[in-house]
C-alpha cells in the first residue's frame, strides 16, 4: 500500500538519464520509450543494481537509494528493497517446481515450508494455474511460465513491482490474457507498478499513466488516452501513429489559418491568429489524396486497414487497399494531399 517516488539523474559519457516520476498504490505507470531511451537503466536503478549519479528512490517513507554528486548516502541492497521484477524472459528457476518457484520468496524471508507451499498454491490459483504446482518449468508453456513468474514476484509481497516488457515474447492472445491477469492482481494487491515497454498496446491496455522517455528525458506524461491522441513529442506521435508537423501559422487567402511545415506541407487549422510557431497533429486516416499541398511518396508499408504511405514532410497517409491500387502508388510518385481542419489539433509553441 505504498507509493514509489523516484528522482534519477545518471550520466554516462554522452548519455544523460534524467527522470522524475511517481507510482501510487494500485497504479500502473508505463515508461514508454524507444530502445536506448534509458528504460533499462532506470529499472536497474530502481531495482538497486545501479547507482545513479544523483537522485532519490523512495518507497513510502522508506528511502532505498539516495545519492548526491556520486556519493551514496543510502543504497539498500536488491534483496532488501522489496522491489519485484518481471522481465521479458520469465526466468522460472528450472530446477524447482512451479510451487517451489512461487514459494521461493516467502521461504527466503523466513516463512515455514508448509506455509510457504500453501501461499504458493493460492498464488498459482489466482494467476489461473491451480493444480499445476507440481509441474516442472519445462512442462509448462511460455505463457504459463510467465504466469508462474508473476505469481512468484507477487508472492514475495513487493512494495513495488517492475515489469520489463513482460509480454514481448508471448503470442498476441497469450499476451492479452496475461495483461488481464497482471491488471487484476496489481489492483487486488494495490501494488505500485512500473511497466517499461516500447509497445503502445501495453500502455493502452494496462497503464493508468504514461511517462514517455526519449533520449533519457521525460518528453511528456499523462493519461494514456490523452498522451496518445494528442501527442506533444514526435516520438510519441510516431508511437501513436499520429502525424505531427511543426511549422509557422500563416494566413490563407480565404482568411483562414494554416500551418506551413517543412517540404511544403500546409495544414489548415482553427488557430486564433497567424504569426507564431505551432505544431499540429492529425491521424493518417484523415489525410485525403487529390487536392492540396504537393507531396512525394517516400515509402509504402502495410497499414492496419490497407496501405500506409509515408510522404515527403514525414506525413503518413492511410489508404484503403482499393484506393491505393487506383492511385497506382510508387516510391517517388507525386501526390496532392489535404486534411480537413476538424481533424487537426493545434498547439502553439513558445
Amino acid at each position, binding site marked *: 500500500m505504498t507509493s514509489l517516488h523516484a528522482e534519477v539523474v545518471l550520466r554516462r559519457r554522452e548519455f544523460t538519464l534524467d527522470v522524475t516520476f511517481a507510482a501510487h498504490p494500485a497504479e500502473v505507470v508505463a515508461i514508454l520509450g524507444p530502445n536506448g531511451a534509458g528504460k533499462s537503466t532506470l529499472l536497474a536503478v530502481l*531495482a538497486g*543494481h545501479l547507482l545513479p549519479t544523483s537522485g532519490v528512490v523512495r518507497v513510502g517513507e522508506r528511502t532505498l537509494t539516495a545519492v548526491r554528486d556520486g556519493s551514496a548516502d543510502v543504497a539498500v*541492497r*536488491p*534483496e*532488501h*528493497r*522489496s*522491489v*519485484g*521484477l518481471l522481465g521479458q*524472459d520469465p*526466468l522460472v*528457476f*528450472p*530446477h524447482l517446481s512451479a510451487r517451489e518457484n512461487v514459494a*521461493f*520468496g516467502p521461504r*527466503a*524471508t523466513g516463512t515455514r515450508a508448509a506455509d510457504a507451499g500453501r501461499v504458493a498454491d493460492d498464488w498459482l490459483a489466482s494467476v489461473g494455474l491451480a493444480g499445476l504446482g507440481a509441474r516442472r518449468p519445462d512442462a509448462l508453456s511460455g505463457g504459463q511460465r510467465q504466469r508462474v513468474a508473476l505469481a*512468484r*514476484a507477487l508472492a*514475495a509481497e*513487493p512494495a513495488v513491482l517492475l515489469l520489463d516488457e513482460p509480454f514481448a515474447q508471448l503470442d498476441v492472445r497469450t499476451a492479452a490474457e496475461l495483461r488481464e491477469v497482471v491488471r487484476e492482481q496489481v489492483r487486488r494487491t494495490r501494488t505500485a507498478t512500473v511497466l517499461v515497454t516500447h509497445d503502445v498496446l501495453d500502455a493502452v491496455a494496462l497503464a493508468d499513466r504514461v511517462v514517455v522517455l526519449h533520449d533519457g528525458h521525460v518528453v511528456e506524461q499523462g493519461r494514456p488516452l490523452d498522451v496518445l491522441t494528442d501527442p506533444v513529442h514526435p516520438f510519441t506521435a510516431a508511437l501513436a501513429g499520429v502525424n505531427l508537423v511543426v511549422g509557422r501559422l500563416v494566413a490563407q487567402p480565404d482568411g483562414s489559418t494554416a500551418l506551413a511545415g517543412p517540404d511544403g506541407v500546409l495544414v489548415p487549422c482553427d488557430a486564433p491568429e497567424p504569426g507564431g510557431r505551432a505544431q499540429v497533429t492529425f491521424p493518417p486516416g484523415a489525410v485525403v489524396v487529390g487536392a492540396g499541398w504537393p507531396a512525394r511518396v517516400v515509402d509504402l508499408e502495410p497499414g492496419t486497414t490497407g496501405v500506409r504511405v509515408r510522404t515527403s514532410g514525414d506525413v503518413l497517409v492511410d489508404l484503403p487497399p482499393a484506393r491505393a491500387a487506383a492511385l497506382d502508388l510508387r516510391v517517388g510518385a507525386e501526390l496532392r494531399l489535404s486534411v480537413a481542419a476538424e481533424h487537426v489539433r493545434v498547439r502553439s509553441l513558445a
Partner: protein
Amino acid sequence: MTRARAVGVPRLLWVPAALAAGLLVLPVLALVLRADWGSLPADITTPAALDALRLSLSTSAAATGVCFLLGVPLAVVLARADGWPADVLRALVTLPLVLPPTVGGIALLYLLGRRGLVGQSLDEWFGITIPFTTAAVVIAQAFVAMPFLVLSVEGSLRTAGTRFDVVAASLGAGRWTVLRRITLPLVRPGLVSGTVLCFARALGEFGATALFAGNSPGVTQTMPLAIYSAFNGAGVTQGTAVALSLLLVLAAVAVLLAARAWRPGRAA
C-alpha cells in the same frame, strides 16, 4: 526425441578418427591381454596390493573432499570476478594442469619441505612435518586435481550467468540463500563432472606424489607408485604390476560409469 539427419562427416575423416580411437583404446586392450588370469586373484589380493588400493581410495577421496571444499568457493569467486587480477588468478589456477607433476612435487617440497618457505615454520613452531606422510599424498593429489574441479565449475557458472541470481535477490533472498538454493543447484552437472574428474585425476596421480610424499608402503605408496615399484622391482614379476594396473583401470572405469549414471536429466 527425434533427431534430424545430420549432414554427415567426410569419409576421409574416419581414418584419423579410427587411429585416435586406437591410440586411446589399444594400450588398455594390450594390458588386458597381457594379464595372467591364473595368478591375477592372488596378485591383487596380496597385502601390499590391498594396502595400496586402500590408501589410493582414501587419499583420493580426501583430496577430492579438500578440492570440493576449497575449489568450489574459488570457482564461484573467479566466475563472478572481473578485471585483470581475476584473469591472472585464472591462469595461475590452471598452471598445475600444464605443469609436469614432478615439477609440482618439487615445488611442493620447496613450499612445505622441512626447509621450505612455509614448511620450516611449521616444523619449528608446531613440530609438524608434511613431506613423506599420508598428508603429503593428499596435498600432492589436491594440487594436481583441483584445477579440473575449478575449471569445470567455473565454466558452468559462467554459462549459467547471473540472471537467476538477480531474480532470486529481488525475491528477498540474501547472498547465502541465493548461492545455496539457486547458483549451485543450477550448476549441478558441472559440480558432478568436476568432482568425478578431480577424483579420477587424484587416483592416477604419480609424479608429484613420488617426489613430495615418497614411496613408503602403507603410508604413501598409492596404486600408481605400487605399480611402478612392481614393474621396476628386482625379483618381483611384472605380472603383479599388470594385475595392479588392471585394478586401477577397473576403479577408474567404475568412477566414470557412476558419474554417467548420476548425470541429471538422464535418469529423469
